């Protein structure tokens, strides 16, 4: 196939042409600093306000509860560090899950070095948070529960409503990293008792370098980036107007297409999953079969290693990933796959294919054919497969 088949939409997405269109005037013409006093800049202030309102509406929130950031990682860092700082009088304990993104996990490690205690709640074999473990982890000093809405590697959707209720009953703040879930799943912050929520523009066909943190009114907040009075004095730095406008546009489109898009993705995803499981032996699906992101599939192919699989797929013009994009270069297998109980060698042989609604079944057929061939080839040179066939362990 000559055309590239991009199946790594969980890593990043193409910015939509309409989004770029919307951004363009804010680079060269309406370039003013929204904080400025003159009329020329007030159009930029308005553009920022409009985008903020679109996003607020998409979550059932108020515009004053949306704070723009430089991306999902910043939002995650901010939520955790600010809560830790603002509520340290109340307690020093934070609960999160074992399968969070590194933006959460490494921030937790940082907090642990700074006097906080963190409990990492486990997940079951499908990657679903163990609610009993969560409840048991709660202490009088617990100030925050942070559990991702849906996992970036295996796509499992967490029982957010239940977690929100547990948090509320125990008077604990609840943050969710919704970087993967936002605009793939229906989210209402009030229904779900969410106090803080992180999202990132480039995961939903918006621009890179922009994200937001939703902070419920009443939550005490501290700045992560101090300085000017932007974002109601909570996040300093000249507003990234083009990116904010583009993000607003991307959300607007994602809202409009929501139902049709996600239904189509689910159908394509199921098609892909069923064919791969049926046709490639010694293969498992990682993540929950149904409680999963519409666009996510994640397989482990026994006896082979993921990187070689990826490179060979790449030579066939298929872009996929193994573990999370940001951690490639690392030699350890994904902490998520280990957390759902996979042994190391199986975790190493994993492949994440995350699609979008523009993929065709024909393209997926081509993908399946190539996955099959490549897995065969790699197994034929694998000492683990040799041992397996010979019955050695």
């Amino acid at each position, binding site marked *: 196939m000559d055309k590239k088949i991009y199946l790594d939409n969980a890593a990043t997405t193409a910015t939509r042409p309409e989004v770029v269109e919307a951004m363009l005037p804010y680079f060269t013409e309406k370039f003013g600093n929204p904080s400025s006093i003159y009329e020329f800049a007030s159009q930029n202030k308005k553009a920022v306000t409009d985008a903020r309102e679109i996003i607020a509406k998409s979550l059932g929130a108020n515009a004053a509860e949306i704070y723009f950031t430089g991306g999902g990682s910043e939002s995650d860092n901010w939520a955790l560090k600010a809560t830790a700082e603002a509520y340290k009088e109340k307690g020093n304990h934070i609960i999160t899950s074992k399968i969070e993104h590194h933006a959460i996990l490494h921030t937790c490690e940082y907090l642990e070095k700074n006097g906080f205690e963190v409990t990492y709640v486990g997940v079951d074999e499908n990657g679903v948070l163990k609610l009993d473990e969560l409840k048991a982890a709660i202490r009088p000093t617990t100030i925050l529960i942070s559990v991702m809405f849906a996992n970036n590697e295996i796509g499992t959707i967490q029982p957010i409503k239940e977690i929100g209720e547990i948090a509320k009953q125990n008077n604990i703040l609840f943050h969710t990293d919704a970087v993967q879930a936002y605009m793939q799943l229906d989210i209402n912050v009030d229904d779900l008792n969410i106090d803080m929520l992180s999202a990132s523009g480039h995961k939903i066909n918006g621009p890179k370098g922009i994200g937001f943190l939703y902070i419920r009114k009443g939550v005490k907040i501290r700045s992560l980036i101090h300085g000017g009075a932007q974002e109601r004095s909570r996040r300093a730095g000249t507003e990234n107007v083009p990116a904010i406008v583009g993000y607003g546009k991307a959300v607007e489109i994602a809202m409009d297409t929501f139902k049709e898009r996600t239904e189509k993705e689910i159908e394509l995803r199921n098609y892909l999953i069923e064919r791969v499981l049926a046709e490639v032996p010694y293969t498992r699906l990682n993540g929950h079969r149904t409680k999963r992101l519409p666009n996510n599939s994640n397989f482990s192919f026994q006896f082979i290693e993921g*990187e*070689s699989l990826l490179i*060979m797929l790449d030579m066939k013009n298929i872009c996929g990933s193994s573990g999370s994009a940001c951690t490639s270069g690392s030699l350890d297998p994904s902490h998520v796959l280990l957390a759902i109980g996979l042994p190391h*060698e199986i975790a190493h042989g994993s492949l994440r294919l995350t699609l979008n609604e523009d993929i065709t079944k024909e393209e997926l057929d081509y993908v399946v054919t190539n996955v099959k061939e490549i897995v065969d080839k790699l197994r034929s040179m*694998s*000492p683990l*497969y*040799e041992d397996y066939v010979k019955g050695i362990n």
Partner: protein
Amino acid sequence: MYSEKVMDHFTNPRNVGEIENASGVGTVGNAKCGDIMRIFLDIDDNGIINDVKFKTFGCGAAVATSSMATELVKGKKVEEALKITNKAVMDALDGLPPVKVHCSLLAEEAIHAALWDYAEKNNLKIEGLKKPKSDINEEEEEIKEEY
């Protein structure tokens, strides 16, 4: 990310396979780290490596270094094969990305392991050959953190 040579040896690996009743077989690495290399040597009575095969579970660099290492030892005397360092393997591949240097170390080690096996089986003592570690540590990783 990889040089053309690496890509070539990855996609068309030389000497993939097994040798039945090999003179020496060495397996190094472990699945935990995501790399396992197994090297089979066929050594004749004059100590010449007549044939060599490998099987590797691992990344592109692991496959390519295995392939190149087998090419480099093929036809060599045991003593010569022993002198082939990971650096030689890397050079022959036009280099490796820093995070993949350990693959070349693993390839070197796999050869040594197969030679050790050969030596043990034949009750030989090969000058300069130490009992190979079954695994190598990625010492270069630490440096990054110190910076």
